[in-house]
């Protein structure tokens, strides 16, 4: 087990190395002159040279690369072009709202989608199942911002139940904190919910056709016991896998959701950085987001061994 975890941990190194190399060389290989584009339309030659110096583009590539890796190893993502603040600090300031949003989305999604999938599989080909499947297909086609604005329009503008936009940190009180997170979590979670509900249904259907389920049913166990204890547990590996795959969906959605709901998290930081063409910030954010994704997948891989004792590497 320890050896397995260690090997999985080692396997994340090349992945993150590719990410680091990619964002580094993207700046060097981008068509045109990135320094001129970052400096803006009517920048003077001096201004462009200053940006170039700040990005380190005036030094030999290998030296730049060594400096970049050296900095990364120490958690130093460089300095913002516009504010001159260290990127690491800018990112750290914005982590909390994004973390709150993703965790609450994850909770809402898993708590709604898995029962939906179980129900659909149990009542396969009945009306409930049809409804769940239609939701699963639709959920995948609805853009996050459309869902977000529809929710705001109904629950905030028309009904006035929830705040339109904004974010309140948890230290302002638990209720205001939750209140501001409900709509964004739902908007962000729809596609993810569709994905998980679909896989839960498929995986449950497969398990429910097994002999041991028939045995469990015929020895008189309650339906709930059979579904939850016998079926869901054995159907869990694909479900957990998809929860991990879906993290990518969440991260992409976070950027848009935070813009729709005006949440001052990493997503807003990304958008502001793009609009100002502050590449060092974008670079740092990519490393952080990719790192988060790799980390989640690592946790998922390790959890397999606990969910299914047959999996031992």
């Amino acid at each position, binding site marked *: 087990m320890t050896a397995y975890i260690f090997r999985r941990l080692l396997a994340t190194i090349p992945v993150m190395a590719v990410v680091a190399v990619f964002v580094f060389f993207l700046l060097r290989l981008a068509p045109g002159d990135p320094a001129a584009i970052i400096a803006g339309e009517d920048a003077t030659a001096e201004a462009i040279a200053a940006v170039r110096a700040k990005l380190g583009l005036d030094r030999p590539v290998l030296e730049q690369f060594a400096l970049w890796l050296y900095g990364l190893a120490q958690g130093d993502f460089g300095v913002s072009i516009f504010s001159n603040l260290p990127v690491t600090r800018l990112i750290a300031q914005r982590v909390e709202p994004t973390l709150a949003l993703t965790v609450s989305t994850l909770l809402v999604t898993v708590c709604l989608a898995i029962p939906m999938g179980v129900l659909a599989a149990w009542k396969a080909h009945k009306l409930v199942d049809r409804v769940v499947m239609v939701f699963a297909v639709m959920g995948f086609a609805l853009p996050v911002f459309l869902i977000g604005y529809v929710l705001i329009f109904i629950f905030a503008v028309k009904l006035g139940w929830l705040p339109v936009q904004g974010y309140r940190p948890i230290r302002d009180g638990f209720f205001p904190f939750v209140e501001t997170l409900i709509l964004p979590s739902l908007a962000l979670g729809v596609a993810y919910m569709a994905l998980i509900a679909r896989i839960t249904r498929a995986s449950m259907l497969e398990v429910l056709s097994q002999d041991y389920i028939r045995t469990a049913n015929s020895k008189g166990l309650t339906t709930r016991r059979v579904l939850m204890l016998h079926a869901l547990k054995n159907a869990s590996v694909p479900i957990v896998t998809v929860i991990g795959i879906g993290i990518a969906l969440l991260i992409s959605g976070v950027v848009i959701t935070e813009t729709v709901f005006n949440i001052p998290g990493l997503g807003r930081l990304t*958008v502001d950085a793009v609009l100002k063409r502050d590449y060092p910030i974008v670079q740092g954010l990519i490393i952080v987001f990719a790192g988060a994704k*790799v980390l989640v997948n690592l946790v998922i891989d390790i959890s397999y061994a606990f969910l299914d004792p047959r999996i031992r590497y």
Partner: protein
Amino acid sequence: MTVIADRFVPSSTLERAAEAIRRNPTIALGVVLLVALAAVAVLAPWIAGDPFRQAPIQRLRPPSERWWFGTDQFGRDVFARTVYGARVSLIVGISVALIASAIGLLIGLICGYFRWVDGLVMRIMDGLMAIPSILLAIALITLTRPGLGIVIVAIVIPEVPRISRVVRSVVLSIRDQPYVESAIAGGTRSGKLLVRHILPNTLAPLIVQGTYVCASAMLIEAGLSFLGAGVPPEIPSWGNIIAQGRTFFQIAPWSIFIPGAFLALTVLAVNMLGDGLRDRLDPRLARRM
């Protein structure tokens, strides 16, 4: 969704696709929707007015007989803008699907067949896949001048690893088939072997995956434009119309809801086509879903 296809399809893929459309209502509905949308996009100048004309007196008018989809804060006709927006979405979706499929097919074939390149190239693909697609696109857009072309390139890059993984897994499962081994034993050169014996088997999963890429490209383009990092704001794309509607959302929600609904419908049609094709062309995978 990850698609792992590892069976080979005997008859011509195109024939099977045509057959699939005839038999499967989901595919038919998807195709009908897409054809209608393509017709709207092509015929835009004849069905809609000028999407750029500003009429300051007619600002923020709700949908009516005169303005089917209402007007925006500059008094521009949202119907005309939405109709022209279909062009952008279709161009982006189709070009990304075609380019990413072509590149992904090439990489997948090479990696699946020539084992010595496989390790390195697939590690690179794993790394690219770790970057969420919208962020990868954003990074490239930060460094270039805005334009439709760069948006297409920026969406192609994150989609290529997904395609090449699918193709590679098919190639890996086929290269040990007796007929491939006998072709090798018969002295067939690698190039011919790849094109004649292996390539045809990758087409079915490639088409299925290509439709999903098309749908996801449309969503990413709209997302990028919505964030202000997509096609230049003067082009009426659905994402741009929505982005520009944000300020007056509470009094003029139609300029967000209508283009948003069009985008959702288009993506839904492409996904339905993809699901239907997957069920027909790739029955083993269909059973798992």
